[in-house]
């Protein structure tokens, strides 16, 4: 998970680990890219509004990196405007979750569904 809010990172960690995921997180886009390159995770939860490098830039970098481009990315944002959704989907995001309306448990279920059904 690449997310600038520490509280949200820890909240998601609790829920994902409880549901059997190996969960690691980064506090900004730059760190997130490093970790992604180093660990090559099965799936990335990506926030949009972050300081320095924002989520959409990170998404672009991931999708432009042939080694990383196959990793599914789920956008996790409070920005509910359709234009943000469209933009993210165009850039290659797998899904777009409104962070304020979805609980970590529900997000984890969605991730599980995506990973078990990789098409």
């Amino acid at each position, binding site marked *: 998970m690449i997310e600038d809010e520490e509280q949200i990172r820890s909240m998601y960690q609790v829920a994902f680990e409880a549901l059997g995921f190996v969960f690691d997180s980064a506090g900004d886009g730059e760190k997130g890219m490093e970790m992604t390159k180093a660990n090559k995770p099965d799936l990335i939860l990506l926030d949009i509004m972050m300081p320095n490098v924002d989520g959409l830039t990170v998404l672009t970098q991931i999708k432009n990196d042939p080694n990383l481009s196959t990793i599914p990315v789920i956008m996790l944002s409070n920005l509910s*405007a359709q234009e943000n959704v469209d933009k993210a989907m165009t850039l290659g995001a797998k899904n777009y979750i409104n962070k304020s*309306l979805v609980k970590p448990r529900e997000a984890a279920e969605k991730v599980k569904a995506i990973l078990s059904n990789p098409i």
Partner: protein
Amino acid sequence: MKLRIKIPLLFLVVVIVFMVIVHFILSSVVLKSYLDLESQEAIKVSERLQQSIQDRLTTLDSKSGDWSNWDDAYNFVVNKNQEFIKSNIQNTTFASLNINFMIFYDATGSVVFGQGYDNQNKKILTLPPFFLNKDRQQFFTPENFSQPRLGLVNVDGKIMYIVFKPILTSIGTGPAHGMLLFGRYLDSQEVKSLAAIEKNPLEYHLYSDTKLPWDYKNAKNYFQNNKGIYLLRESEQILGTYTLFYDIYNKPIIIFEETVNRDIYSYGKKNTYITELFLLTAGVATALFMIIILLNKLILSRLSKLTREVQKIGPSGSLSLRVSSFGKDELGTLADEFNKTLGNLESATQAKIFAEQRSQSLLGVIEEAVIITNVNNTIVYTNDACEKFFGYKKEEMNNKLISECFELFDKKEKPLDRSFLKKLVTSAPSGNSVTIYIKGRNEKLAVIVTSSEIMVENAIRGRIYVFHNITGEVELDKQKDDFFSIASHELRTPLTVISGSLDNIIQGYGKSSLSDVDLKALQNSVSSSERLTRLVNDYLDVSRLEQGRVVLNIKTVEADALVKSIEVEMQPLFAKKGIELKFNCDKNHGPVMADEDKLKEVIINLIGNSLKFTEKGEISINHSVENGLLVTRVSDTGMGIAKDKQHLLFARFQQAMDNTTARRAGGTGLGLYISRELVKLMGGTMVLEKSEPGVGSTFCFTLPLAK
């Protein structure tokens, strides 16, 4: 009085008066003098007749003289020797003397010889008793006997010239031995002869005649009191001249009427007529002349005066001047009307000046920039606000096209077509408002532009554009919006953490076991934080809607399928409340044009509302096609909405319920407002179709069908 009556009347009066005077003068003076002349001429005629008769008598007298002063005759009346008669007096003697009677009396008055002879008929006439009875005849009296007499006498109703002379010796010495009488009838032959001398028709009647014609009677009456002649103007052509003659006893005996042609009178009359005609011509000319003078006085001079006064007013330009009063005829009326018109013009002009100044002041004072163009979109007027707004001087803008001075941008700050403003005004000539950005020399400004065509007598003479500067408001809105977005985002994060973390605890991810009380408390906290999140989201939606920032993804949407999926999705909620959800689609209609996500949001909102306020019964959804639109009706058997609250339904932050109900239902009060705004954006409308407290409500919205 009107001039058109005044002038002809004046003309008529002048001519009539003139003619009356002329006629009076001519008839009383000139024609009378002709009549006098005629009378004098008639007197001459009469005198000539008298002279003719006197001449007869004189001739008779001279002829008798040869016989009375003759020795033979002197002796004869003494000796009565018939030889004298035989040798001197034959019938032819009468003819040669042109007499009818010859009588010799002796000194005693007895007839010595007397004979009468009709020369025409060659007949001997007997002596009338008149000549024999000396006692009855005045001139046979002894004292008169020797006196010669001559004159007219009436002998038994016949008029006769007689001469009565003493018979003397040849040398004319006496004593007279007797008297000699010559007599001659004044018969019709004689009258003809007199008429021939007079060269006029001549008639006569005896004075003593008892059966006189009327004119003779008049003459006789006249002669009883007057002398001279009596004139009777029988006609225009004929004048009767009556002359009275006396006999030798100096008694009236005969009236002669000589008929004279009235040449003098005719001539006089002709002259008078010619004179009158001449004077009439002269009179008319004079009258015309006078009229021209009067015309000048009555009209032309006044007209000139009026013209001068009007000319004075013209160049002065002062509408407060007036022409002076001109009486009560047409000219007066003209002057009055002119003054009245001036008055009207003056007040109209003052009103116009006031209106202009008012407009000028208004345009100068208002905060809106006003640009007026002619029909070719060339700027003809700009107000003070224009200079302030756009950074141009007025002179820089005048006579330029709008497109030369300004750049226009739409709401999203994309450049607009050059003819945008013109199109705007022509699309709604009576006034139209739109928000755009406009850039002159200064910074770009957000303005609401209102435009209108200037119509003069049904023709477009120009256009007026009013720019209301809303840059400040737009900026403020933007700041507010930014603030709202940030605030919402900032609020959401902690809320997300709260509800997510609580959910983690409830799920037991922390491996801790919870008491029922703790669990309940945590569940309440989760639902409250969820509600708070919904509120924040709704506020954000409202904010976006009002900013016009909601971007719709309009596509064809199978509305029936969408409702069915919602039905399935919401089924658990209905099951929990024990309420039935029915979906009726009356026929197979095509898809609608809509944003699927927003449409879903709208339908869920309506069903959710109904569900919130319905405790038993059912909620039904109906699809039908009306007027080419898909109509979606959501009906419930819920508590319904009172009539006086219905108007609050679609207002922001309003719930038509009392506070307790609303709180229990957990709404934000923004759902219907947002739903209706979304429907509007998708080209439809939303209304509360009917609602009755305790019976239920029906909400209804439309969407355009895909073609």
